[in-house]
């Protein structure tokens, strides 16, 4: 009984170590294959469409509503202190520093990350990847590298679009619903939002999140057990691990950037 339990613990420890090792080796091979996309840029374009453009709609809708809800909630609190002209500041700072990168990371893991894992995993279980190797096509270069690069490029772009949409959503609520003046909204924001401290740090966060989420997504697909059950588990792991990684890294990055 005790031995069984010990064996289970040992096995899961060894498994997680070997997963980490395979993941790192995979990342290394993937980075080495990245120059290949300069020779076949249409592969990257196609993946940018699949990963970036098709995620755009959910990003736009989510951004709009997050901005609108934040403005409404900020108003409820701030109006008690007679500080309702600070709505724009609250909306823009929370969007630029935290919500923009984190929301985009989470949505990307759910929408594009899971699709990447499922696609690569199905290629593996239908032996397309081995087929490519038989034809002397390196699947690392032909399948993984374009997807990896497309994800890394798309996440910051999506984040910036999310931020802009959310602030426009907040602007709409503040001016149309709460009757604020347009000039007050923009001038409060410009006076206090710093380009490097706030906007650039948000973009740096999104670069990190994009890298980690895409890494997890393509690795889980490439490493999955090639059965329908294994594929399902891999997709679940992508979403769960990707989201947790985004949230955990966000805490670390915030602590580093905004020196609390």
């Amino acid at each position, binding site marked *: 009984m005790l031995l069984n339990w010990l064996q289970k613990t040992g096995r899961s420890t060894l498994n997680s170590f070997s997963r980490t090792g395979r993941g790192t080796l995979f990342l290394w091979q993937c980075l080495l294959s990245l120059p290949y996309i300069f020779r076949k840029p*249409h592969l990257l*374009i*196609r993946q*940018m*469409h699949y990963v*970036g*453009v098709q995620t*755009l709609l959910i990003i736009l809708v989510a951004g709009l509503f997050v901005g609108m809800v934040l403005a409404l909630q900020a108003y409820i609190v701030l109006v008690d*202190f*007679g*500080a309702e002209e600070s709505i724009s500041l609250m909306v*823009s700072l929370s969007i*630029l520093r935290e919500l923009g990168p984190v929301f985009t990371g989470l949505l990307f893991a759910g929408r594009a990350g899971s699709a990447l894992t499922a696609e690569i995993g199905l290629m593996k279980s239908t032996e397309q990847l081995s087929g490519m190797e038989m034809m002397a096509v390196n699947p690392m270069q032909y399948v993984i590298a374009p997807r990896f690069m497309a994800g890394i490029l798309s996440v*910051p*772009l*999506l984040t*910036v*679009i999310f*931020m*802009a*949409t959310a*602030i426009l959503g907040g602007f709409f609520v503040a001016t149309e619903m709460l009757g604020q003046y347009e000039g007050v909204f*923009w001038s409060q*924001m*410009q*006076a206090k*939002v*710093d*380009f490097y401290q*706030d*906007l650039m740090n948000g973009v740096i966060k999104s670069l990190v999140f994009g890298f980690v989420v895409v890494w997890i997504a393509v690795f889980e697909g490439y490493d999955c057990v090639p059965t329908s059950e294994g594929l399902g588990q891999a997709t679940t792991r992508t979403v769960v691990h990707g989201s947790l990684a985004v949230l955990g890294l966000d805490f670390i990055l915030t602590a580093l950037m905004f020196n609390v």
Partner: protein
Amino acid sequence: MNTRTIEILVGAFVVLAIISMVMLSLKVSNLASYGNNGDVYQIRAQFENIGGLKIRAPVSAGGVRVGQVSNIRYDNEEFVAEVTLDIKNDYQFPLDTSASILTAGLLGEQYVGLDPGGEEEYLQPDGELELTQSALVLEQVIGQFLFSKAQE
């Protein structure tokens, strides 16, 4: 979907992101105000206590914003706080202008208010304001009030 459509969509995506970035930099953040540091001049003012004054706090004269606080440091020889003010070149102030640290509203942020005097000559760049009034620190005011009550 053929290659042309896909390329057009990806192009539109990238352009949309660039437009968003431009909007965020110019309309939301203060990038636009970074460049025009050329047309300001600096004057210094020493305060005994600056309260909660921060860098980039506004400097205003008669309620109009004429510049901002660009640097705050502690002068370790005279034991006072030295504040550097960036004043826009469009505005000039007499030599005996006084500076005071005021609070916008009851709980608002602190800013530097300039009160022009009657001198004929103007403050030169890198000049120093002689007349300053420190920030109002609530604890000190209450302390003084209690002290004067106890004396009665």
